[in-house]
């Protein structure tokens, strides 16, 4: 591996640590099967994603220069990946100059240790959290719990997930797989003071959560809060947190100590660049023109907000993603979740099937790059295949990440690795495609095969092929669910006849190349 300079003393690109929540226990096809068999889950997902999708589409339609905005967003993100080392150094000095403290975390463990130590030193037994993907990815809640510190999620959906002892299944709406009735039950089971008469009206549920959280907020002076950030401005050292509920803002302003755990790719070069992203993000994410709360904070200010600010800059596999020129634009993601909501796979399987904090199309290209794909039995090796390559994700991505292209690139990497590992290139697919490649590059053999497909399959009855025995390789995956047309006479035999008729009609013969360029008899 080459060395990628990250502004931290020169470091080698490194995959995410195994303790990260970036890899499930089972491969995607198997995990998806369970989700597909759950009709409630499918209905919850279908309903929620189609609502957000419609809202997003109309919010985007309003913006006449949307494509130009996307281009600008993409160009800025490329600028960041191209100049990450310098920008990180700049961010470190601007945060320090503003009175913040910068910590560098190589992986999930380091980040966990830094945050735990900071919290313990301040005597915190309970910390409030603002919804953040980075802390989810490093399993921070569990790490803190292990050190005896209780974490309270302040985001409504995140709170639901936490109270149900569940895991998030969506980037923006972690509890998207739950419906109102399920949420009511979760609240009743975990909020002791809650009145039994509560209904499943969203307003009542939100009110219950608000009351539950307000008590925690009132306790805040002298306390510690943990957040992520949507953007970190290198020029000014400003962190930006974008949210809908306002609970995040309370966590960001009321505590004595604020710790933000931020992935190194969250950088934007200048304050002015936020103009582009703050237009792209809310419209793509919630389908709003502007999100209700945008909190920006720069270091510390006496008598205003937290007295201490710590920024933990997290690598955890990002340097490995950065190392691959063809895959690195996965780091451009601004976590809007638009690609999830339009993905026909995600909409049907939900987020848990991806086994990672990052589900859906972006997860399928990000998780395997962050963790690496270690072999055929690595669940993350199945993620690049969890897509029909329909391209809907690329169309909606506000920063134009070409997800289908990266999916194919990662498949190529997976296959190349197998081919280059002695004795590893012998799976059913490897054999089938090796054979097909040979056949399809030998015109004569191919011509013969095409012409005999009809006669060979004529032993099967009927006009189409129905269910086939499972002992055959590959085909049953198709015929278990749908019929297959039965090959008859190939086009080539019709063409031969057509040629003959044509030449006898106009009295000429069209020079016609036979397979392998030989003259036809």
């Amino acid at each position: 591996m080459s060395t990628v300079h990250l502004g931290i003393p020169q470091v080698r690109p490194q995959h995410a640590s195994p303790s990260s929540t970036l890899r499930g226990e089972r491969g995607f096809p198997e995990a998806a099967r369970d989700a597909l068999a759950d009709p409630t889950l499918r209905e919850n997902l279908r309903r929620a994603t189609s609502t957000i999708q419609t809202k997003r589409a109309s919010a985007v339609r309003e913006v006449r220069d949307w494509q130009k905005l996307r281009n600008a967003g993409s160009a800025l993100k490329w600028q960041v990946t191209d100049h990450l080392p310098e920008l990180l150094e700049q961010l470190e000095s601007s945060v320090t100059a503003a009175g913040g403290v910068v910590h560098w975390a190589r992986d999930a463990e380091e980040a966990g240790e830094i945050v735990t130590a900071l919290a313990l030193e301040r005597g915190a037994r309970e910390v409030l959290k603002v919804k953040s993907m980075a802390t989810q990815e490093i399993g921070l809640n569990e790490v803190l719990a292990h050190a005896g510190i209780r974490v309270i999620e302040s985001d409504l959906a995140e709170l639901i997930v936490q109270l149900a002892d569940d895991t998030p299944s969506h980037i923006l709406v972690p509890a998207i797989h739950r419906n109102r009735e399920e949420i009511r039950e979760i609240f009743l089971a975990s909020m002791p003071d809650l009145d039994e008469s509560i209904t499943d009206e969203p307003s009542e549920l939100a009110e219950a959560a608000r009351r539950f959280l307000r008590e925690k907020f009132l306790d805040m002076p002298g306390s510690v809060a943990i957040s992520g950030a949507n953007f970190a401005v290198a020029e000014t050292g400003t962190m930006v947190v974008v949210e809908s509920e306002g609970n995040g803002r309370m966590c960001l302003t009321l505590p004595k100590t604020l710790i933000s755990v931020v992935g190194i790719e969250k950088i934007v070069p200048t304050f002015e660049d936020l103009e582009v992203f703050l237009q792209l993000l809310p419209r793509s994410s919630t389908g709003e023109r502007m999100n209700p709360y945008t909190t920006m904070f720069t270091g510390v200010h006496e008598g205003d907000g937290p007295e201490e600010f710590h920024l933990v800059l997290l690598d955890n596999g990002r340097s490995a993603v950065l190392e691959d020129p063809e895959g690195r634009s996965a780091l451009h993601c601004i976590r809007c979740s638009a690609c999830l909501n339009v993905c026909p796979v995600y909409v049907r399987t939900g987020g848990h099937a991806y086994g990672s904090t990052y589900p859906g199309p972006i997860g399928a290209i990000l998780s395997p790059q962050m963790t690496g794909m270690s072999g055929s039995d690595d669940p993350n090796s199945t993620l690049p295949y969890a897509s029909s390559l329909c391209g809907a994700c690329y169309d909606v991505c506000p920063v134009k990440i070409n997800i289908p292209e990266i999916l194919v690139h990662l498949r190529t990497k997976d296959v190349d690795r197998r081919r280059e590992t002695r004795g590893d290139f012998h799976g059913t697919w490897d054999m089938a495609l090796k054979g097909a490649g040979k056949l399809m590059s030998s015109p004569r053999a191919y011509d013969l095969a095409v012409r005999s497909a009809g006669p060979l399959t004529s032993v099967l009855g009927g006009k189409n092929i129905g269910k086939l025995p499972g002992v055959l390789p590959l085909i049953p995956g198709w015929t278990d669910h749908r019929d297959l047309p039965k090959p008859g006479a190939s086009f080539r035999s019709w063409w031969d006849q057509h040629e003959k008729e044509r030449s006898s009609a106009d009295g000429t013969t069209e020079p016609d190349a036979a397979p392998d360029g030989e003259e036809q008899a």
Partner: protein
Amino acid sequence: MRISLMTTCLVDVMAPDVARATVILLERLGHQVVFDKRQTCCGQMHTNSGYYTEAAPVVRSFVDTFEPALDTVDAIVMPSGSCAGCVRDQHQLVARHEGDSELEERAAAVSAKTYELSELLVDVLKVTDVGAYFPHSVTYHPTCHSMRFLKVGPRPLKLLRAVDGIEVKNLPESDTCCGFGGTFSVKNDATSDAMVTDKAANVVRSGADFVVAGDVSCLMNIGGKLRRTGAAPKSIHLAQILASTKEDPFVPSETILGRSA
């Protein structure tokens, strides 16, 4: 014009009538069709599954077949959006993966003359009314590769609307993928099945007799599901509708995408 037909392997074997219809249509419009029997496949199954090294000889064979005739034909036509997309977007990537810059250049030259059927008709041959007759109701599935990668846009619908006797019905959720995705349909068969089940249900909901598209792969998927569930609509390729006339109308056979002789 002189047009070279690349049938695609799937059409050649599984849906020969689509290639036949393409020939009949182009000849009726006064063009000369040539078919080089050295042709095999575009390599899409390999490329989309990540087998670039195994795709390389297939791509080379494709280029060897079509390059020598580039000066004598006006265009190469493929009755498949995804295969035309593979030629345009992936052949050069495969060559690059193999470090073969000569192949990369040659592949670029071939791909510059390669068109999907509706592109050929509307952009090159400048025709939307091809004089077809098809007295049935149809609903159009845009197929992902035609819509998002080739960006054929409204071309197929323009061609369909000009067909005599046809009724074009709206397909609910038309731009959602049918779940084919090449090897995806087998590797992730449960997910693919959930997708095609919804697509087939939407075809039934449209109330049309036929679902039409420009890709045989997707049509085999949707048609196969419709047949398995015993639903009435049949799948049909754009070429089959455009080739159909009063004198020689298209009559479907029991085989998916097949035509009664």
